[in-house]
């Protein structure tokens, strides 16, 4: 159980986070420059928080009120750096053995534990290689082995997948997910890529300007994003707008920020600015304007990107709207970038949230 409550003033904003993680994986998601790495550094003891309290299980690592600040060499934390920071002058075996040697363990035990770890990560055959001769994927495994061999009470990973190319990435991601599932120690993975958050599972914490804007499963975040920032970051379609008119059945016309009007069914009316969310899988694409759906936006295909077994197509129709469709339907449409297309969605698919009071919502 990791408990973090930490504040630190930075030049442009301040970090103020409360995190509580049992023995599972939490993905800290956010764009670069929003303090993700700083939060990780504070937990690891690399950076000292201005005030707060950090504990793992019953061990207090930092407590500003009691003046406790355990040095990073005594925290027993597994840390995987963004580009792995392998010791260039040590072989793979020596890199992994380093933490055990520092603990003064007997050579026989070191040999045993290092080999067990290398075998678990399927890199035992690389034990005598130097880091410079390894591929990015192999380096990542060595870094992971080096962090895990010390039996850490906590695993922190800073953008562990960003050094890998796209193809390798999804494979390593699912391997990492499987490995972490077996570990059962609190783990925080920092990433700016929503695909990592989806692929690694677990809790997602969205960090916005040093604060956790929302916390929950990826599905939770999609279903009810706490702010436009969260909605856009989890790659849902999010817009701000106003209710233009609403009748007694709840049939409403909404005006989006750029003046575009869409139909929706609301349970109540809102007088202030609202957050409008349309999930990508509720959006259909077609080549003609025919069909039963009330909302039909004509636009041009901006980008097509695969997402797991499906495909996301972003359309520019005055506003940007992303549709998540199956591969067969994409093949049937024969879409490519620049093509004209109609994006349709039902009135029932338009989700509306009041903007201002949700923005302050914070995860527990």
């Amino acid at each position, binding site marked *: 159980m990791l408990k973090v409550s930490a504040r630190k003033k930075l030049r442009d904003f301040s970090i103020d986070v409360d995190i509580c993680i049992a023995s599972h994986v939490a993905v800290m998601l956010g764009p670069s420059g929003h303090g993700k790495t700083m939060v990780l550094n504070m937990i690891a003891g690399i950076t000292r928080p201005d005030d707060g309290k950090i504990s793992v299980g019953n061990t207090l690592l930092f407590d500003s009120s009691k003046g406790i600040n355990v040095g990073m060499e005594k925290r027993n934390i597994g840390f995987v750096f963004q580009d792995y*920071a392998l010791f260039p002058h040590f072989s793979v075996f020596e890199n992994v053995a380093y933490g055990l040697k520092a603990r003064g363990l007997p050579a026989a035990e070191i040999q045993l534990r290092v080999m067990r770890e290398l075998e678990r990560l399927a890199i035992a055959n690389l034990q005598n290689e130097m880091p410079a001769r390894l591929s990015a994927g192999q380096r990542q495994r060595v870094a992971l082995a080096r962090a895990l061999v010390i039996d850490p009470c906590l695993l922190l990973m800073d953008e562990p997948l960003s050094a890998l190319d796209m193809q390798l990435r999804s494979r390593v991601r699912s391997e990492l997910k499987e490995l972490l599932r077996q570990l059962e120690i609190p783990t925080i993975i920092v990433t700016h890529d929503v695909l990592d958050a989806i692929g690694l599972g677990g809790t997602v914490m969205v960090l916005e300007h040093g604060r956790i804007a929302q916390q929950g499963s990826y599905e939770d975040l999609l279903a009810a994003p706490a702010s436009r920032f969260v909605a856009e970051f989890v790659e849902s379609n999010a817009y701000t707008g106003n209710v233009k008119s609403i009748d007694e059945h709840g049939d409403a016309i909404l005006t989006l920020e750029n003046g575009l009007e869409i139909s929706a069914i609301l349970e109540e009316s809102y007088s202030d600015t609202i957050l409008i969310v349309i999930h990508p899988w509720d959006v259909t694409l077609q080549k003609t304007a025919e069909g039963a759906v009330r909302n039909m936006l004509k636009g041009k295909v901006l980008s*097509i990107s695969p997402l797991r077994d499906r495909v996301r197509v972003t359309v520019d129709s005055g506003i940007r709207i992303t549709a998540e469709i199956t591969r067969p339907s994409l093949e049937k449409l024969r879409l*490519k970038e620049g093509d004209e297309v109609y994006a349709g969605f039902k009135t029932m698919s338009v989700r509306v949230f009041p903007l201002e009071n949700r923005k302050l919502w914070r995860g527990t």
Partner: protein
Amino acid sequence: MSQLKNVPAVDNGERQPESWARERPAIASYLFKGGAGLIAVVTVLFLVIPLAWLCLWPTADDLIVATLSPMLWDAMKISFITSTLSTFLVIGFGGVLAFMLARFQFRGKMIVDTLVDLPMVLPPMVTGLALLMLFGRNGPIGGWLSAHGLALPFTVAAVVLAQVFVSLPFFIRAARAGFESVDRRLETASLLLGASKARTFIQITVPLVWPTLLAGAILAWARCLGEFGATIVFAGNFQGVTQTMPLAIFEALQVNLNVAIALSIVLLLVSFCLVMLLKFVIGRAVVTHA
């Protein structure tokens, strides 16, 4: 999958340059390369010819006579012992200062930085004079030492002090650059793995800067071997006591030109070997860091 990839259109509109446009840069390029090559050759010859001429000057007999002279052997022995000792002192003291300059911010760092480089631009005679005034019998420290029966000037200790003074900046500059170039995250990684600060320094920092430290040490050693001005003022020129190779050459020059030349050739060879060693060490450093 094939539809997902946006295949960029192949650009076949690669324009062929007009004939005049193709040839003119070629001529200019030949002229430029030719000119640069000529200047390079002249520069190398300027450095090599005087030394080569020096080596060709003495007859074999002259060299044998010079090689057998006790003056040469005394000077070589003293040069070797003092410069080696000085180099170790420079590594010890200069290493700590270099580390501090590389890693810590403190008030007056700029000034310290400038002061450290000063011996490089100062005429060595001035260095010798300054040391003499401080450590000499009438100087504040020398006076105190002589009251306790110790004297520094005109001893082998003075030779070492003079050499340390002039060669310190060479080592500090190299070592500082080395400590600055170490990836700090590697040290952080070591600490996070549970290694103490001392262990991290010995196992991670030093091995990573080792080639740079060695290169700096060789430079400092070479500077010690060639040191003349500060030594002759502060330590004097006594054969078998303070007479290093450069000083022996200076003395021989006033008595026997052939011995002076023979001594010079020996110093030249040692220096050449040192510089070669330096290149080798730096070359290895580049390879291991790549």
